[in-house]
């Protein structure tokens, strides 16, 4: 199950979304967030659920769940009319459905907090948070403070910015 059936690069901040081939060589660090679930689909999650990265990091979402499809979709008014939970000026991204083995990449350039969810599994608490840079960075934009239309189970899923910055990465409850 090679994560190469679809490779998509979305460039945050520049308004550029480009299709690339697997041979494309990315400059800068690459971090991975896995989409996972139990074999019967009782539970689904992003791992890690919270991740701290430097500006200029490429994030790769990869679906390692053999029995389900997932998306990595950021909270933004232009995507399904959701509240904005990524820095102003950052380009919103939506991976669309990733089948098992598929992956999606997004380059994060603006410092701040990025909250995202899985379209079919937000109601099951499948959300995540990426912290780019640190609060001292120029232009830093912190976490959204309004709940908006998010359910309690989704809001409960975001680790605190402090916890993410302290640990670097936060795994979902019950995952090693």
């Amino acid at each position, binding site marked *: 199950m090679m994560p190469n059936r679809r490779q998509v690069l979305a460039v945050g901040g520049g308004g550029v979304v480009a299709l690339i081939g697997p041979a494309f060589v990315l400059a800068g660090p690459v971090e991975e967030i896995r989409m996972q679930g139990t074999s019967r689909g009782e539970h689904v999650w992003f791992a890690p659920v919270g991740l701290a990265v430097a500006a200029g990091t490429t994030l790769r979402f990869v679906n390692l769940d*053999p*029995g*389900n499809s997932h998306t990595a979709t950021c909270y933004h008014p232009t995507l399904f009319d959701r509240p904005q939970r990524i820095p102003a000026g950052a380009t919103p991204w939506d991976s669309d459905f990733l089948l*098992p083995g598929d992956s999606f990449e997004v380059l994060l350039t603006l410092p701040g907090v990025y909250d995202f969810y899985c379209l*079919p599994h937000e109601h*099951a608490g499948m959300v995540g948070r990426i912290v780019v840079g640190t609060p001292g960075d120029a232009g830093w934009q912190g976490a959204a403070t309004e709940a908006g239309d998010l359910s309690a189970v989704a809001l409960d899923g975001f680790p605190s910015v402090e916890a993410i910055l302290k640990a670097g990465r936060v795994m979902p409850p019950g995952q090693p």
Partner: protein
Amino acid sequence: MFLNLSAATFGIALMLAAPGLAQAEDVPEAAPPPAPYAKVSDLVALPDFLPGLGTLFVDPATLPAGPFLGYDRDGKLAATIFMTPIEDLQGGTSYNDLAVGSNDVSSVDIYYNAGHPGVEKPHAHVVLFHGADAKARLAE
């Protein structure tokens, strides 16, 4: 709508005092079942073969409950699956007189699923295995 129990079949079932299962009598042992069945992976973004359930076919008009027909890697019918949203059950919806792919039911598994394309709401999977080896044939 060959899946629905026809009046004639129902009459025969009564006469034979058959156990209360409505059989999808025209469902073939070998995939693919005829229209209105469609392959689930052609309808929504899901892989062709789902570990534990197999290659699924469903009549879209019967969503969400199904029956879904699960075929093994060799294209042989191995399970009939029903998917019943918890919220709908809680709200009083019942799913009655559902057809089965085969009357040869060796065992049944029931478990929770948090949702997937096609049946997004959290639901129960009710899996009727057709044959003692059916679960193993669908495992992966």
